[in-house]
């Protein structure tokens, strides 16, 4: 089961990176700037991906899955709170729906999917790999595993830049209409 579980973790890492990149695509495609809660849901996806990445680099361990679950729980609170804000009839929802659902609803579904995915990976993981040396783990960390990790890091760094350009170093407005950096650019 080892290679299959490692492949599952690589798929999880790549899936999280893809979600972040799709969110970027929608941000620029629909010209909708992310609200602070939307940005925090992206943070939650990054926190989920971190556990998968640790499994790829250091071998599969329960601690790493625990970190992914903590990220998913954080995301469930953020997206669940936002979904509940607009659940009452007549309340104006934030942003345009994508495939019939708003992005925070998609996030809610995806965080449940992450928890289900981690449960499946843990069931098939069997023994943890902490007995293998770091050297062995480092040797196995190549090819598609390394590519998935780099993709997640690139997506995270892109989000860091995007967040800084949108909100500046500290506070973000509740419903941003323009980038913070645009105040300092010549028109």
């Amino acid at each position, binding site marked *: 089961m080892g290679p299959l579980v490692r492949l599952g973790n690589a798929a999880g890492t790549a899936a999280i990176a893809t979600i972040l990149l799709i969110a970027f695509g929608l941000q620029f495609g629909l010209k909708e700037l992310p609200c*602070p*809660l939307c*940005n*925090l849901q*992206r*943070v*939650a996806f*990054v*926190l989920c991906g*971190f556990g998968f*990445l*640790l499994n790829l*680099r*250091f071998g599969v361990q329960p*601690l790493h899955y625990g*970190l992914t679950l*903590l*990220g998913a729980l*954080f995301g469930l*609170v*953020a997206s669940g*709170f936002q979904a*509940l*804000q607009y*659940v*009452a*009839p*007549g*309340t104006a929802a934030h942003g345009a729906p994508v495939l019939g659902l708003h992005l925070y609803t998609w996030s809610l579904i995806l965080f449940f999917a992450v928890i289900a995915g981690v449960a499946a990976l843990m069931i098939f993981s069997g023994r943890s790999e902490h007995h293998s040396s*770091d050297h062995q783990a*480092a040797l196995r*960390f190549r090819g598609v595993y390394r590519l998935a*990790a780099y993709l*997640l*890091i690139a997506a*995270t*760094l892109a*989000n*860091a*830049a*995007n*967040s*800084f350009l949108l*909100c500046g*170093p*500290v*506070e*973000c407005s*509740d419903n941003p209409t323009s980038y913070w950096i645009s105040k300092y650019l010549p028109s």
Partner: protein
Amino acid sequence: MTGLIFLAAAIAMMTALAGYRGVSIGLFGVSAVAAVLWLDRYMTEPLKLSF
């Protein structure tokens, strides 16, 4: 602030790739705690759940 949280998470991932597991998990903890505190800051609106 969210940008800094993303940055801390990205540095945590890079230190993990470099082989420093303890440091990377510590940085993950810092970014996770900062994210929770920042979420608490934005969860201020009362929910209108009765209709």
